[in-house]
């Protein structure tokens, strides 16, 4: 009997021949990511536990993204405490205002297929796009890993999503994952793995795969994962990253046992939006088109990549956003920001009336761009909870970069397909 990719990685890292869903295992961690918001808490717990040394400083990455630029006096204390700790522990991987953690981790070469990566952020599941087993944990557990290099896991059951066909123009990866979450619900995959496979996935870029795995947690999943293929390896060449550590876990065994299987024909998909106030409240955009919006946001670890900015710019080029709408664009990393400048995308966005802010979590972490009572926003990020990005009496709709850009132009939620050139 075969195993799923996730089971194989857990077996490998727990030094077992085979593991089965439901079993508890202690596994070795390849890399940890800690962001600025929780850094001081991890450090405090680490000390309380009585540890003196980090198990392996080269495997620890600190990223400042939630609190940059500092919008509170407290933020500066977080930066200082992390710098001091990193210095003392000989941790050299500290990235300040370089971009969002989940973008920086793969970009800087900290994510490899077959790796176990733990992060103090729920969207750590993003790295499944690279065939790694990655998930979010709390700061106390992170402290324990810093001390021991290990963590306990319960082997998750796998839900298989077989995607076939090619996405129609104007429909993208965000629409796929929104559609899936709408179907299975925000707890449809709780404690399970969402494994995405099929020729539909093979046709997607790494950026698109990251969007899909990023939102696995929004269906409650422990992790999302995609088999490694040529697209995966070409990413490492493109970013000139070493492939020494590249571990190919053979893809899903045909006889692996899955909890359940879903099939999607991508060619039949239409643009989707997630309506207030839960990510699971997903509808085709046509059902809410015409809703007036006050703000549009393009950014976050879900959809702040170069491809997303390209989509938005191609829709907006030569047009002006609705004067009643604030359009905030936050590239996911400094690298992306610079590439977007070189490609002229930033110029197009600025000329249309958009505000481009420094790379970071930005609005998605409640930082700059908060909307007021009775206001409505269309956003490319991953959560639309009450009060996450505005007053309790505001509304957030989640959509693809194309839907966000097209809606910013019209001033109301709109199907982007009519704006594709």
């Amino acid at each position, binding site marked *: 009997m075969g195993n799923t990719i996730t089971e194989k990685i857990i077996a490998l890292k727990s030094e077992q021949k085979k593991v089965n869903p439901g079993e508890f295992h202690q596994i070795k961690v390849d890399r940890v990511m800690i962001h600025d918001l929780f850094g001081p808490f991890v450090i405090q717990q680490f000390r309380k536990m009585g540890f003196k040394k980090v198990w392996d400083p080269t495997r620890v990455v600190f990223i400042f993204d939630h609190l940059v*630029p*500092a919008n509170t006096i407290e933020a500066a204390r977080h*930066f200082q405490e992390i710098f001091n700790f990193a210095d003392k522990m000989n941790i050299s991987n500290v990235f300040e205002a370089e971009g969002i953690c989940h973008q920086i981790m793969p970009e800087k070469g900290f994510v490899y297929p077959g790796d176990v990566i733990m992060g103090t952020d729920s969207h750590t599941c993003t790295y499944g796009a690279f065939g790694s087993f990655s998930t979010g944990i709390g700061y106390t557990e992170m402290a324990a890993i810093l001390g021991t290099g290990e963590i306990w896991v319960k082997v998750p059951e796998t839900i298989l999503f077989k995607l076939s066909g090619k996405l129609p123009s104007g429909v993208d990866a965000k629409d796929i994952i929104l559609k899936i979450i709408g179907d299975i619900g925000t707890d449809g995959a709780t404690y399970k793995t969402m494994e995405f496979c099929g020729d539909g996935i093979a046709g997607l870029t790494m950026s698109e795969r990251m969007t899909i795995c990023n939102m696995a947690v929004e269906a409650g999943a422990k992790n999302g994962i995609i088999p490694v293929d040529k697209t995966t390896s070409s990413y490492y060449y493109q970013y000139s990253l070493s492939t020494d550590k590249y571990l190919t876990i053979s893809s899903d065994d045909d006889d692996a046992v899955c909890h359940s299987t879903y099939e999607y024909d991508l060619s039949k998909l239409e643009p989707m939006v997630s309506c207030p106030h839960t990510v699971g409240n997903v509808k085709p955009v046509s059902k809410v088109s015409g809703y007036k919006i006050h703000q549009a946001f393009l950014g976050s670890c879900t959809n702040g990549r170069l491809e997303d900015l390209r989509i938005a710019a191609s829709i907006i080029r030569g047009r002006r956003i609705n004067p009643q709408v*604030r359009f905030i664009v936050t590239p996911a990393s*400094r690298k992306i920001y610079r590439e977007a400048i070189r490609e002229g995308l930033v110029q197009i966005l600025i000329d249309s009336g958009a505000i481009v802010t420094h790379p970071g979590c930005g609005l998605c972490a409640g*930082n700059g761009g908060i909307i*007021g009572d009775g206001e409505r926003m269309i956003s490319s990020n991953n959560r639309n909870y009450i009060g996450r990005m505005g007053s309790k009496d505001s509304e957030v709709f989640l959509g693809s970069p194309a839907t966000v850009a097209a809606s910013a132009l019209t001033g109301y939620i709109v199907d982007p397909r009519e704006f594709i050139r």
Partner: protein
Amino acid sequence: MGYTITEKLFSRVSGRPNVISGDIITFTPDWSMANDATAHISIDLYRSEYGKECVKLPERSVLIIDHNVPADSPSTAWVHKKMRNFAIEQGMLLYDAKGICHQIMIENHVAAGQIIVGCDSHSCTYGAIGAFGGGIGCTDIVYLWKTGELWWYVPESICIELIGGVKEPVTARDVILAIIGQLGPDAAIGRVMEFTGVGVHNMSIPERIVLCNMAVEGGAVCGIVEPDEKVISFLPGRPHQFFKSDADARYYSSYSINLNGLDPMIACPHSMENIVPVSRVEGLSINQAFIGSCNNGRIEDLRAAAKVLKGNKVKKAVRLVISPASINIYRQALQEGLIDIFLEAGAQVLNPSCSTCWGGCTGLVGDGERLISTGTRNFKGRSGSHKSEIYLASAITTAVSAIEGVITCPVKE
């Protein structure tokens, strides 16, 4: 008896000949401006006093959202919404997240010969164009919206003659710091700083803007420079009326300042009383550097900073925060490749806004931190924590210090 430019400007707007300092006049300003630091109070006041009644001169009333951009909290979002609604309802001009109010006013409205009032102390900036700019409060602007008029004590003027000039890396920023350092932060209380002499006439308009913008830090109501041809080429096509002070105009006092050989200057915490040459405080470690504000966030300042930063990296654990003063400046910097230079050097490039200089929203400094800034003020807690220190210097000094990680004088012995 002669008159100062200021007296002549007030004479024009009040419609009374021979207005002199000390007169209290009522007049209609050419423009009024309010921003999101205080406009919510004004709008609430207006609504509670006058309900839905129309503003007298909406076409001359400007609202600008620049201090907290993008909104950082539900209460800020609420302030912005209030301003947008009021602007639409009253037919006022609204600039939403387009840049810092004084830069926006100069780019779009201010003309030589005008009197402009703004609910912001740095409205004194407009003197660089040969206009009078004065800061007012919320009640003032509510009264102005309602009646179209304002009361004003016509101020006396101080004549500050600038002799000689400065050369890079010494800038107009160092000049105004030196002037305030020499005169003291209260030398010009309630008066106008009128800059005269070759030193100022050789300056470009952006340099004069730097000078006049900080007049308020010397206590002045306004900083003013006699307008010349440079004003016309700086604001092509904008109507203007030139006023000049008479040779026998009366000044409260006069100073003469020689700019030749001036050192780069820096204002140390926590007041403008502590202005010294940068070399005096060299080597102090910094946590953050800020380039921006209505004083030093223009393209000339960004170019100067980029020249220093190109090919260099900001020191580890130092944050360099850069915020162009307006979206037009941002665009210009983008086209000139400056934004990319900043990003490559490791700076955080913020969208145009008051940011660190105003300390209410973004780019803040924490307890025990030291900031070097091109902002306008070094008051305790101005850019964040009350337990932080702010040093004010030029864009060049700030950029050099960001690379070194310590306060560094750009001129080496």
